[in-house]
């Protein structure tokens, strides 16, 4: 492989890993901080991606939108739309056991996928939306590498925001809820309210990840939002990296995306008639990897480190 194509490959790899890192940090807010179980990540991811696409693409007779707004508006819209869906689901399940949240999120992800697939007027159905542009069109930054810088900037931004939140009193309440719900309630904290806040924040971050994905890939179709890619990989990333730890979430995204890409390179060596089996084999390997981590090292590569206690001034 010549150097230029290797570089292009590396840029695309890191951009994907960066987008997954944003999703994994969103999940970390919900699961790692608060212990809320969301397996509808694909749904929030899809809402973000489609919202940004509809806001920013040029006008089209096939579907609604084509508002031609700038990139930044698309991302803000993606974040808000996803947060709104999170608010609805979170409101319904905030008072219930997390198993109910898991079932409700899988339901909402499936509903969103059905909706995208069947409502052609809004999303162009299975034909998908094409021609979503990268930001900075016409400037030297309008390259894959330029977009990688944008994604990295967002990873850093989300990381610092979440680290701040984690160390704050707000983050401490979330961890308290995760560790001991009755004790937190006894200390006078409204469990449902904190849970809802964490869930909505996580959903918003996932929507942001969806928006970043839309502008990177340039084309959206309902098939991209199957639970496997959207949800399962993100879970494996967070668990492998270390749930509760934002650095773990980022590391997990890079490592697991690397493993996933490597399995693709390996199965590509198989003859083409085995293409569907090869895809199944890759999923099998990642599934087994998850189980091995859960049994042998459930805390992940980088375990959670609670922030140091600050000595109170006398």
């Amino acid at each position, binding site marked *: 492989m010549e150097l230029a194509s290797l570089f292009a490959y590396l840029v695309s790899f890191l951009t994907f890993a960066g987008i997954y890192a944003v999703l994994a940090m969103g999940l970390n807010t919900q699961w790692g901080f608060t212990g809320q179980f969301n397996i509808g990540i694909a749904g929030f991811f899809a809402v973000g991606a489609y919202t940004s696409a509809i806001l920013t693409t040029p006008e089209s007779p096939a579907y609604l939108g084509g508002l031609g707004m700038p990139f930044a508006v698309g991302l803000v819209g993606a974040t808000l739309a996803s947060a709104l869906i999170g608010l609805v689901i979170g409101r*319904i399940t905030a008072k219930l056991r997390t198993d109910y949240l898991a079932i409700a999120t899988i339901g909402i992800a499936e509903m969103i996928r059905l909706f995208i697939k069947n409502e052609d007027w809004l999303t162009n159905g299975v034909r998908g939306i094409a021609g979503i542009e990268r930001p900075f069109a016409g400037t030297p930054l309008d390259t894959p590498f330029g977009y990688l810088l944008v994604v990295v900037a967002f990873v850093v931004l989300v990381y610092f925001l979440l680290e701040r939140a984690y160390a704050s009193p707000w983050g401490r309440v979330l961890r308290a809820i995760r560790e001991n719900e009755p004790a937190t309630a006894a200390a006078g904290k409204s469990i449902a309210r904190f849970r809802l806040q964490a869930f909505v924040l996580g959903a918003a971050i996932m929507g942001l990840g969806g928006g970043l994905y839309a502008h990177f890939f340039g084309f959206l179709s309902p098939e991209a939002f199957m639970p496997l890619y959207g949800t399962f990989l993100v879970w494996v990333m967070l668990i492998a990296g270390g749930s509760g730890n934002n650095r773990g979430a980022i590391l997990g995204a890079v490592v697991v995306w690397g493993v996933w890409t490597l399995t693709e390179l390996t199965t590509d060596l198989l003859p083409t008639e085995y293409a569907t089996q090869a895809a199944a084999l890759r999923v099998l390997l990642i599934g087994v990897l998850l189980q091995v981590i859960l049994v042998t090292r459930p805390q992940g590569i980088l375990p959670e480190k609670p922030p140091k206690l600050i000595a109170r001034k006398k």
Partner: protein
Amino acid sequence: MNDIIQILIYGMVLGSVLSMGAIGVSMIFGILRFAHFAHGDFMTLGAYIGLTFIAVMGLSPWFALPAAMIGMAVVAVVIDQLLYRRIRRTQPVILLISSFGMALILRSLIQLIWGSENQTYASGIQFPWRLDVLGGLRIKPDHVWIVLISLGLVAGVHLFLTRTRMGKAMRAMSDNMDLALVSGIPAERVIIVTWIIGGALAAAAGVFLGIDTRLHPVMGWTTLLPVFAAAILGGIGRPYGAIVGGMIIGISMEMSTLFISAAYKPAVAFAIMVIMLIFRPQGIFKGTL
């Protein structure tokens, strides 16, 4: 009027399938305290085990049913002993993640072994019975058998839970885990029996679904949401509630095709579930939370 009765019958067939899945989900939740996300893929695997018996031994689908149920019960116990048992001591929510991973492992195994294209148990069309008395109502014999056999299985589960020592132990564990353990109930054995029943009923659901429609590696995954909806509606941890929930969800899903696009059938199950979670999260029959 005739159309409505016809759709009601389809709804009861779907309801039977959902009930078979929901009883297992409900019992596993009651005893192991986690939502078993691989249950849909248990259904799929059961259906494909049935397919193998039909293809290799030339059995008819109805005789393959018990074979698939036994096969899937064995697989369920093996999965529990190999994997779930090792992480049972940690929080139940880790089991939830693990079962979600197991769902994908099973699905990809099914794709590897049986391929990912649609398959059927028997080719050709079955001629329905025409009931002239009821204004030319058409009933497929398969549908009658599906409803009757699932009623039989439900009666069997009921007798097991109420008349046997093991069944009573299971209900005790589901009602009050600590009290049951203190009074010396063999927890490991109860758990294994739970997986046997859950696995066997999931296989029955899968074979019914295969007889009624076709086999596909995601057939169970797409049925998982209505199955959970049925379990929640009936009160999770309540096997009897699961039957009521299954029938309500199944009939509502089929009836909805009179008003909205059939593509949104799963949305009906989801909507009923959400309404239930808002107004009565414990289900029709008060569940174990």
